[in-house]
């Protein structure tokens, strides 16, 4: 394989490169995985998980699995993580874990169980004889896809067919679970207009604030008296989750918007920044 492919390096320099790539990505992956467990915000967890998955894709390429490397990037990092992010947008982007332990001593015992598991697995792996990499062949290089296809459609054809049934079932199941019946008739434009006037807020909601140093949809606008307008920030961004109904139709704030829409921003808000 090494001779067949011009891009694959050989010799001691290539070994050093591989070692370097391995260690850099290993440190990055483990750090990102630890950060995923420790980060409080779910969005940060998703982004850290992306780092782990991309490092694993590079490892697959190093291990002679170019097809799996691309599948890892496309399916995992592309599709699965985007699905996670979509659901995070539905649930509320700042859905952070509470620091309070609901079960007493849970973190302590979980950590102990993790350490015990690590010791157990390390002992098992340490006792196992993990030989060197087998002799490289074209199956781990240029003809990887062909060889995989050959295996899938000969020896693994039955699991492959079962996979199709699984995918169909999963798709239908997800549609059934995500489906909602319309319980009330769809409001007409006239009803919406009446409800809007009756809500006491007939004008459109104010837009987010635009300041000298901050210009984002999560920055609340300032009212003439200097206070911040809660209506100018979407409840999805301020942590309340997506409201079930538009506020104008529901009569008051929906369930999702109980929290004050303006929470502590990441940095100083507009007024201080503007006066400096």
């Amino acid at each position, binding site marked *: 394989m090494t001779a067949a492919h011009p891009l694959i390096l050989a010799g001691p320099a290539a070994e050093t490169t591989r070692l370097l790539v391995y260690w850099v990505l290993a440190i990055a992956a483990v750090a990102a995985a630890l950060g995923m467990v420790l980060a409080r915000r779910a969005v940060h967890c998703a982004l850290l*998980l992306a780092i782990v998955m991309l490092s694993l894709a590079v490892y697959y390429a190093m291990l002679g699995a170019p097809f799996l490397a691309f599948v890892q990037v496309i399916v995992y990092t592309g599709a699965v993580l985007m699905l996670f992010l979509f659901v995070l947008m539905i649930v509320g982007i700042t859905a952070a874990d509470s620091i309070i332990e609901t079960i007493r001593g849970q973190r302590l015992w979980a950590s102990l169980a993790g350490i015990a598991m690590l010791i157990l697995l390390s002992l098992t792996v340490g006792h196992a004889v993990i030989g060197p990499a087998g002799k490289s062949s074209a199956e781990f290089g240029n003809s990887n896809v062909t060889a995989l296809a050959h295996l899938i459609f000969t020896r693994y054809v039955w699991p492959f067919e079962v996979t199709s049934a699984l995918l169909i079932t999963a798709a239908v199941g997800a549609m059934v679970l995500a489906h909602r019946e319309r319980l009330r008739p769809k409001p007409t434009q006239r009803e919406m207009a009446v409800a809007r006037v009756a809500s006491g807020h007939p004008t459109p909601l104010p837009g987010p604030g635009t300041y000298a140093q901050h210009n984002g949809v999560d920055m609340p606008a300032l009212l003439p008296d200097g206070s911040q307008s809660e209506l100018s920030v979407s409840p999805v961004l301020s942590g309340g989750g997506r409201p079930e109904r538009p506020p104008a139709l529901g009569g008051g704030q929906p369930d999702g918007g109980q929290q004050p829409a303006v929470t502590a921003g990441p940095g100083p808000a507009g007024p201080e920044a503007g006066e400096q």
Partner: protein
Amino acid sequence: MVSPAHFIALSVILFVIGAVGVLVRRNAIVVFMCVELMLNAANLAFVTFARMHGALDGQVIAFFVMVVAAAEVVVGLAILTAIFRARRSASVDDANLMKY
């Protein structure tokens, strides 16, 4: 030289981190992500063993694991959105109707 043992060690570490995350985290979505991390670690071990033995079977199995993981994520996240709609919460502590 990077030997298969290196990759197996990394796989073990990632798997344990994922397992601890499943035990510790209370947000159901993050728990799902930790499960994904464990599946990825197992995949790394499969691919490494395929390389070690010089046979492609491990890669085929890793491929199937990816397919099953994708299906699992789709259904799991649909369940999560259904729960979130009903209870306005994504915490695993709040889905306790069947608790003893």
